[in-house]
């Protein structure tokens, strides 16, 4: 099937988001849609997926004009959509989520749970994924949820699949498997639109690229003819600085030390310490337990046993509020579930952490909060209309920057950043790296959790690699490399050198 979108316009209020965009996606090809945060990628795809109406313009399927009033109509026409943010129902098991809205029914209209479960197990087997179809979605890690979404779209027998940043919470092996699946589908004639801010992924898997900048299609062509630097330049309109900022590494005294920390299920026997001015990395694969570890240290979950020292004093952290008072900050991953408060505006989302810090007699110091955030808007390049707009009006990457802003404003002694650049565009990523390096130089102890080896190598002085809930090994200094990290992450050991 050939999908054409012609002369699409879309605005939100005064904000003209798409201007005369025309694109074509052919069956049997994987086409990248890239652009800065807020360029209009998700909006364009929401129009194709029947989520939003266009102001003007037409969609053609195989040359016939169509109109989608809602997502169901788009799906019926053969277009499956994996959204940027997770869209599963927490209170249902995996297999029922897989068939949401397309439930299989037996005679008398009863739900045919057995068949649905079987089909789910079948696709997991084909994708080589170990996941119980009967598990409740609520209990799944964000990565597994993303996998469930991808499998669901794949199972729909769609002719076109839209993938809006499907890899942001996956680790290397799952990304490989998703890519294999995409290739299989492509060879069967399915057209795939792939949105990602990781340009090397685009180079890996896509044949064609389309670049949106400020709502206009500014470049398209064959991936084979360009480099990642070219793509980055198309996106921002000028050359992107890629050279690394070096910082003067001045590592001071120990700030946080953890001894023999154990959790009921997620991790065990954890020992590490981090010093002032140091950037310590934590990486690993799916199910390594690093997020659970730091959410527990931050006081959000209970630990079974173990001891924690802060500035040489043993502390028992009993709540996140307590952790914050002690000077520990934790930016969670998976922003939709763990960070975004959808009923509050942008400013409130960006200042919730610092309300109690700057309040006078329990009253929020609005002017100060506004001042702090205004600085961050410039620094992080957050694209917004008014700071009192709902957080839902921001694009995914810009929401991530708001979440980052609230923790930067808090200035803790120890700042834990869990997947901090999720969904952030190339330019902003560099800016965030600079900020992190700068904070370390000012004497903060920083812990970066990431599944991107590149990010770890780029930022960290040393990194601990976790495997199935324990620390498998350490890599450090200029000799850090992807190979060693991957080896430890899969349970191997490094040969003594």
């Amino acid at each position: 099937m050939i999908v054409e979108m012609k002369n699409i316009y879309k605005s939100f209020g005064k904000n003209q988001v798409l201007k005369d965009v025309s694109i074509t996606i052919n069956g049997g090809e994987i086409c990248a849609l890239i652009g800065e945060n807020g360029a209009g990628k998700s909006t364009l795809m929401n129009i194709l997926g029947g989520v939003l109406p266009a102001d003007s313009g037409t969609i053609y399927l195989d040359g016939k004009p169509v109109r989608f009033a809602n997502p169901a109509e788009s799906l019926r026409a053969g277009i499956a959509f994996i959204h940027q943010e997770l869209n599963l129902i927490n209170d249902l098991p995996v297999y029922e989520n897989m068939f949401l809205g397309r439930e299989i029914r037996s005679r008398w209209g009863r739900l045919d749970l057995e068949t649905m479960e079987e089909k789910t197990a079948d696709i997991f087997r084909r994708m080589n994924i170990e996941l119980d179809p009967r598990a409740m979605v609520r209990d799944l890690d964000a990565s597994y949820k993303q996998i469930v979404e991808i499998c669901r779209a794949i199972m729909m027998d769609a002719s076109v699949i839209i993938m809006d940043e499907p890899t942001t919470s996956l680790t290397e092996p799952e990304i490989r498997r998703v890519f294999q699946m995409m290739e299989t589908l492509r060879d069967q004639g399915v057209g795939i639109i792939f949105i990602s801010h990781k340009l090397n992924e685009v180079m890996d898997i896509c044949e064609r690229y389309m670049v949106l900048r400020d709502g206009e299609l500014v470049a398209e062509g064959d991936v084979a003819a360009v480099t990642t630097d070219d793509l980055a330049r198309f996106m921002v309109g000028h050359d992107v600085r890629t050279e690394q900022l070096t910082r003067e590494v001045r590592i001071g005294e120990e700030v946080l030390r953890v001894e023999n920390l154990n959790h009921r299920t997620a991790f065990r026997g954890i020992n590490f310490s981090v010093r002032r001015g140091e950037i310590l990395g934590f990486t690993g694969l799916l199910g390594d337990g690093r997020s659970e570890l730091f959410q527990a240290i931050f006081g959000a979950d209970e630990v079974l046993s173990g001891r924690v020292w802060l500035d040489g004093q043993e502390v028992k952290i009993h709540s996140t509020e307590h952790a914050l008072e002690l000077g520990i900050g934790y930016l969670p991953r998976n922003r939709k579930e763990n960070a975004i408060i959808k009923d509050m505006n942008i400013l409130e989302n960006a200042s919730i952490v610092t309300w109690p810090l700057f309040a006078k007699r329990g009253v929020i110091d609005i002017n100060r909060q506004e001042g702090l955030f205004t600085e961050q808007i410039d620094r992080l390049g957050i694209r917004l209309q008014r700071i009192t707009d709902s957080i839902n009006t921001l694009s995914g990457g810009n929401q991530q920057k708001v979440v980052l802003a609230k923790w930067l404003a808090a200035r803790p002694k120890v700042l834990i950043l869990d997947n901090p650049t999720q969904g952030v565009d190339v330019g902003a990523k560099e800016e965030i790296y600079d900020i992190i390096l700068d904070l370390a130089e000012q004497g903060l102890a920083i812990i970066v959790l990431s599944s991107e080896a590149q990010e770890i190598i780029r930022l960290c002085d040393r990194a601990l690699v976790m495997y199935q809930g324990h620390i498998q090994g350490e890599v450090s200094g200029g000799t850090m490399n992807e190979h060693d990290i991957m080896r430890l992450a899969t349970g191997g050991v490094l040969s003594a050198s």
Partner: protein
Amino acid sequence: MKVMETGEKTGFVGRLRLRWANDSHFGTVLVLLGLIILQTLVLGFDYDSVGQWFSAWGRNWINILRNNAGVGIIALGMTFVIITGGIDLSVGSTLVAIGAASMMMLDIGPKGFLGNLGITGLPAYVLTVIFAMLMGLVLGALTGLLITKGRIAPFVATLGTMKILRSVTQHFMQGYNPRVPREFLQLANLQVGGLMFMPIIYWLAIALILIYVSQRTVWGRQVIAVGSNERAAQLSGVNVNRVKVGAYTLTGVLVGIASIIQVARIGTMDFANAGSGYEMDAIAAAVVGGTSMRGGRGTIFGTVLGMLIIAVMNNLLNLFGVPPFLREAAKGVIVIASVLFQRKESA
């Protein structure tokens, strides 16, 4: 190609529609105004002079407001509770329990607690008011702890305390009818210019304070955060349990105040029936005013509007001569209709 500016609505209707979409109170205010106009028409203009008509109209209104002040005050606390994602079914029973205890303190008979201590007059009244608020505070805090530390669902926990408080009160008050000193009744019945509006003033003052609390204070905003996304609030350093306990505690204190108003209005209390149904009326006021039962959404101002809508509606049905039993049905209709109305926001 010409592009339509969808966001730029012009003309009266366009601007109206924009307000409708962006201001959650706009529709509620419109409905209230409509009802008030209708009510005014029904009251009629069958009077000798404009002055007389106005005074009749005003008296009707003062009656409406005064009769709803107690529930109106409770509804303000209920709003915070519902925004956190909870519910408090025990407000009616708490009201009776506090009322009974306060009356025992004030009793001018031989069993009167303060009287036996030799405390009478103003000091006794002040002590009683403070006691009522403290008792509400303690009961509310206990409910909150039951829900947070005890991890019992709010519906179940407060259903339990609702039953316990009412039955215990009834048991202890069997055959005992405390007599409240006449002077104490001034608290609610003080007349200024021949009109009694003290309860209305209490309601208004508390509403204004709480509007400020919910919009400007750390706790007020944290309530929204907790109700909207509890995990995200927690991971932003919000002490979720304390925020929730705070909401139930505040409700308890407000119930204490409502209880004093009730006692001061008539000097007696029917321990079997007083306050029953208040929980539903308070919830209805919040919901009609735009508070979402799923948490995260709602305003104090909205709840005041909601309470007024329900009150005026009641008054209207009364004026129309609708039989009392059917009036409850009308309340149900308003609640359901308002929720359907508010769907537009989530779309």
